[in-house]
């Protein structure tokens, strides 16, 4: 694979990843957002630039991207020109957007009411600092009082107060909700700053009352939560903390490149399978502040993990990178684009014919199950197609007693492992249980479910990953919908709807697997044999 990577963003992590890739003989294009504050960040890399291995493109206008892993075609348009490039992988690693919480605390910015970033600016010049905050003045920080904070901001607040206290000899106060010390060295920093004289006030069920009058006089009245007495504090300077958001640049890239984002708006779905730097699209990685609010140590770990992931793509021979399934489109395809819409990995390409990019495909089978024309034939290299593996219902004839035949469709990433573990743990599982391992529950079609009943199952279970834990993002949701659809129809076909059930599991839930299948067997025992039994 071409060792050419596009780094999108302007951040220290972007610089670090660029350096690492250049040192691994890669070629890098860095595209920085037009409004980047620190565009000179990459100035130290002139040698690579002169050697033609590094190109830096400030993005003034719009960005578009197409293609998939191994060959992404990207175009930057702006200032009346259009620049097109082709790269094998993409990394999104921009800086974070900081929004001061003035309104959250009911105060307006002024000379004496400033944000955390503004106070950092003051440190840059000693003369400026002395003028802004003369000797003898007292500074109060507000953090995590209305909304929960995070270790990144807490670290900055504590460091800032410590510097003011120790180097500038100003008295500082930190008014905080939960003090977020879950970062490397933060508890030690907390103790150190306390010893240096920083005063901490913690709030749980009360909030301090903050008033800035028209003469800019600041007064804070609060209840000390341990002794429950009222106190007043009148600092000269009030510093408000900041809320961190993903940058507009990161957000726009995610939307253009069809990357799932998380509940916090950052560019990675909140899915454990994406750890540490992966996205739903192969060959597109996300790191640092584009990924989430992270501490210094976590962002550093991301840079190495990203470089490794890119290196892995470079080194792998192409034949090892083809996907996990064989997929063919039959003549039934009418280009309805359902597959294009549902593919979580962006692996469907639309040229003269609809086709699958096998390198980007993860073989989940959602496209085949969703295709309204049954035009997609998919089979895993080892296991064949799911349809071929649906077993005939077992007829247990050693006694006259009815032993239900249960077909359980199990996702390979969760329920299959849970079933194996249940067996290891020594649980006795129903004699009539037959497991059909599927690459993703999203590959289970309506036809598969009907077919299991047709083949003589007395009950059918669909067992998938928990919501929010599907490697294919929504495979379990599709499976759930199909189970509901079939359940609704079962009575019309003469089956009790209880013969079909949907359950979620993780691969380490052996006990729960045993509980589910045992309870299901019991309910089928009560219903008796399927009406198709023996026909």
């Amino acid at each position, binding site marked *: 694979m071409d060792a050419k990577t596009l780094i999108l963003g302007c951040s220290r992590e972007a610089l670090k990843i660029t350096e690492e890739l250049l040192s691994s003989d890669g070629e890098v294009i860095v595209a920085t957002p037009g409004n980047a504050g620190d565009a000179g960040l990459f100035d130290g890399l002139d040698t690579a630039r002169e050697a033609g291995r590094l190109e830096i493109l400030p993005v003034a206008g719009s960005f578009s991207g197409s293609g998939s892993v191994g060959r992404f075609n990207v175009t930057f348009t702006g200032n009346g020109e259009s620049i097109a490039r082709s790269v094998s992988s993409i990394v999104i690693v921009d800086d974070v957007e900081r929004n001061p919480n003035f309104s959250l605390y009911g105060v307006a910015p002024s000379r004496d009411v400033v944000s955390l970033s503004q106070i950092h600016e003051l440190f840059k010049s000693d003369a400026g600092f002395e003028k802004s905050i003369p000797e003898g003045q007292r500074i109060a920080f507000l953090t995590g009082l209305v909304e*929960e904070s995070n270790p990144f901001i807490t670290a900055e607040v504590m460091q800032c107060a410590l510097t003011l206290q120790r180097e500038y000899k100003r008295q500082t106060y930190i008014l905080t909700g939960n003090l977020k010390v*879950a970062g490397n060295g933060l*508890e030690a920093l907390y103790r150190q700053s306390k010893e240096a004289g920083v005063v901490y006030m913690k709030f749980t069920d009360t909030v301090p009352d903050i008033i800035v009058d028209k003469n800019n006089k600041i007064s804070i009245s609060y209840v000390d939560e341990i002794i429950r007495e009222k106190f007043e504090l009148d600092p000269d300077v009030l510093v408000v903390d900041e809320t961190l958001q993903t940058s507009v640049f990161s957000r726009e890239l995610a939307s253009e490149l069809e990357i799932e984002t998380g509940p916090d708006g950052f560019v990675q779905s909140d899915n454990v399978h994406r750890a540490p730097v992966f996205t739903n699209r192969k060959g597109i990685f996300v790191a640092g502040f584009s990924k989430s609010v992270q501490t210094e140590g976590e962002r550093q770990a991301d840079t190495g993990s990203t470089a490794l992931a890119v290196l892995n793509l470079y080194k792998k021979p192409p034949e090892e990178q083809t996907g996990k399934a064989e997929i063919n489109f039959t003549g039934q395809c009418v280009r309805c684009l359902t597959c294009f819409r549902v593919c979580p990995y962006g692996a469907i390409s639309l040229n003269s014919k609809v086709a699958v990019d096998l390198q980007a495909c993860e073989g989940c089978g959602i496209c085949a199950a969703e295709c309204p024309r049954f035009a997609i034939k998919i089979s895993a290299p080892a296991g064949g197609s799911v349809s071929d593996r649906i077993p005939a219902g077992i007829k247990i004839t050693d006694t006259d007693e009815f032993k239900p035949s249960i077909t359980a469709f199990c996702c390979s990433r969760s329920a299959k492992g849970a079933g194996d573990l249940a067996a290891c743990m020594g649980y006795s599982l129903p004699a009539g249980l037959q497991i059909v391992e599927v690459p993703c529950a999203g590959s289970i079609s309506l036809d598969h479910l009907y077919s299991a009943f047709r083949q003589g199952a007395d009950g059918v279970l669909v067992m998938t990953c928990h919501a929010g834990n599907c490697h294919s993002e929504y495979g379990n949701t599709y499976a759930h919908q199909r189970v509901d659809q079939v359940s609704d129809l079962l009575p019309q076909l003469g089956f009790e709807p209880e013969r079909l059930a949907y359950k979620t599991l993780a691969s380490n839930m052996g006990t729960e697997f045993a509980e589910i299948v045992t309870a299901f067997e019991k309910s089928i025992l009560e219903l008796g044999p399927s009406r198709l039994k023996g026909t």
Partner: protein
Amino acid sequence: MTANKVLVIGGGVAGLAAASELAELDIDVEIVDQSDFPGGHAIQYTCKATDQCVKCGACMVEEKLERVVTNPKIKVIAGARVRDVSKSEGFSVNLLKKPAFIDPGKCSNCGICFEKCPEEGAVLKGFSRNHVPFFAISEKKCLYLKDQSCRICQEACPEKAIDLNARETAESTRADAVILATGFTPFNPVSKPYGYGKFKNVVTNLELERMLRTDGRAIKPSSGAEAGSIAFIQCVGSRDAKLNHLWCSKVCCGSALRMAGLVKARQPGTQITFFYMDVQTFGRDFDVFYAKVRKDVRLIRAIPGDIYPGTGDQLRVTFLDNLSSETLQEEFDLVVLSVGMTPCHGMQETAEILKVPLAETGFAQKADAGGLASEKGVFTAGSVTGPMSISESIADAGKTAFEVAKYLGV
């Protein structure tokens, strides 16, 4: 020239992740793990999903272990520890391997040894289907190893897979680089006034993880009945100036509150109280999670002083109630101590063998941006350098694997 080989010491999530990343780059890897059941502490953790995944990461450990055991480039040496290391061209490493009482080639995981063993805890069960064999014999508890009084398991084994006379063996190996990934040791709370070890119904968060993992319910160890009221006590051995433990263990708030959520979903009648100093942010939808937890769980910002026996097998917890500024006593069925992460047992010795500097905290010194610990060719991954979550350990292991690949010129 022989192919590059890396030795990973410690088969927890960081060691496993680093190993499979290196194997992907065609590097041979050996993992030495002191436990019979590799996967570190986290392989014993429970999935904390209710209907919705809560991103605890426990399933990722299972996935990493699976990737390792199915990768032909990686060899796992379980039940072994490093005796010494010498360095000339590469590293020469001497290992001591526990006796292989159960032959993995013969064992069929039938579980008869476990069923027949008369001594509790003498035959141990694994935690993952990737633990092969799924059973192990405890050197501490086995009666035969104590006084040769019992050979029931060996005689009962239908596969003739058990040999109680097996001996410890010495093995040696070589490596071009070493990754130290020995993780952490959970704080031992016996020194705290909470009666741990004395009262059966005082357990650690790790014990609750295991309980939920194997039984699926929060029960009272004293009777096996479901616990009707549970108190979680946070920061036991973390953020403790008296112990000079000046660190937050990062993961315990998330672990405890997620377990509280799971128990609440499965045993809705259970009353849960959470004693804490500061609730730490965990997960990217923390605000939503926290809002729900505040409805389901009573949060009290105080760390209890003592625990005494109460009515029946209940435990009486003493704490300062902020709202009334009074010292209160309340009884609970089960008390869960969220024990902190401390430097792993034998850290000092390992550090000397590998010439790894220690930080003030006693954890291994986190290498600077270069990723190298002091001795050339020795690297660290995961919580051996300080508390880390599962996902942080995986990211750290990725960075380490990259540094190792760079060092080896891959």
